[in-house]
């Protein structure tokens, strides 16, 4: 490298804005991925005390996919602080109330509980659908790759494709399909 460019540091310390599409993604696996960008763990200059985390915009948090029967089984605990103030909310119920909350809690609990955690969470912007304010979206310069492929629904395939799909058997004429 030339002597003039020896200490060239293009945007090394700049905050980058990433966008992540949470549709059909496991929120708990996504949290580990998002945490890396929020805390700046993906940069070789990382140090716990240097403030090098990036912003992450997450869209479609309403369409997250929980594994197995987690929607029914996972309970979120809250306590008002008063006697008898404990409450347990099941995942589907919480998701009905606020479609961003499950991912937010997943990211929050994936990080260590220190003084920096609240400030790191401020850099996470969650949106239940694709509608992001233009003043946030104009900052975005990178898209984070989804961790698993989005499955295509049967009714999104064309009639042609469905007909041409190889079949093992033909149903008998009198077979009742439910």
């Amino acid at each position, binding site marked *: 490298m030339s002597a003039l460019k020896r200490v060239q540091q293009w945007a090394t310390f700049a905050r980058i804005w990433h966008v992540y599409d949470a549709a059909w993604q496991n929120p708990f696996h996504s949290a580990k991925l998002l945490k890396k960008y929020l805390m700046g763990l*993906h940069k*070789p200059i990382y*140090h716990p005390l240097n403030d090098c985390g990036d912003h992450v915009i997450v869209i479609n948090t309403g369409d997250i996919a929980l594994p197995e029967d987690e929607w029914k089984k996972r309970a979120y605990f809250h306590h008002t602080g008063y006697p008898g103030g404990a409450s347990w909310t099941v995942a589907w119920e919480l998701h009905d109330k606020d479609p961003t909350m499950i991912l937010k809690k997943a990211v929050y609990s994936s990080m260590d509980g220190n003084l920096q955690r609240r400030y790191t969470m401020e850099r996470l912007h969650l949106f239940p659908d694709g509608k992001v304010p233009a003043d946030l979206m104009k900052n975005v310069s990178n898209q984070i790759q989804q961790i698993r492929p989005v499955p295509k629904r049967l009714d999104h395939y064309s009639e042609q494709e469905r007909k041409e799909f190889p079949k093992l058997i033909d149903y008998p004429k009198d077979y009742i399909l439910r």
Partner: protein
Amino acid sequence: MVFTSVANFVRSRGPDEFWRKRKIFKMAAHYIGRSRNCYSLAIRSVHRALVFATKGRALKKQDLANLWVTRITAGCEQHDVNYHVFRESLSRSNIMLNRKSLADLACWEPFTFKALTDIAQKRALEEGIAPPKGNKVLFVPKRGSQKKT
């Protein structure tokens, strides 16, 4: 022995207790409250501090090693190399750099680090070095999951 003040000269042959306590008080000089003036409290907090210091010497080394791994992993990810593949390939290429030097290169000399990842990628391709198996399975069919509703 050299004494900077008359008061200490007087004590020089005097009671051992004074000098014994003074050693502790000197170590507790920067504490707050009574733990720097009262001996029985000072000795407690000094003992505690010395235990922390002993443990801290080991912890510091671990923390730094963790930080180096984080930095090298970050550098590797920028060039699409797995950390374990990177380290294994470098050692097979006879490039004996430790975690500290690799982290320094990743942080301060990104172009040098890129050259190293290029070497590692070539070596990994030649010798078929694969990343260790993780939980990469996306879908495992279980007994209930195939059932029609």
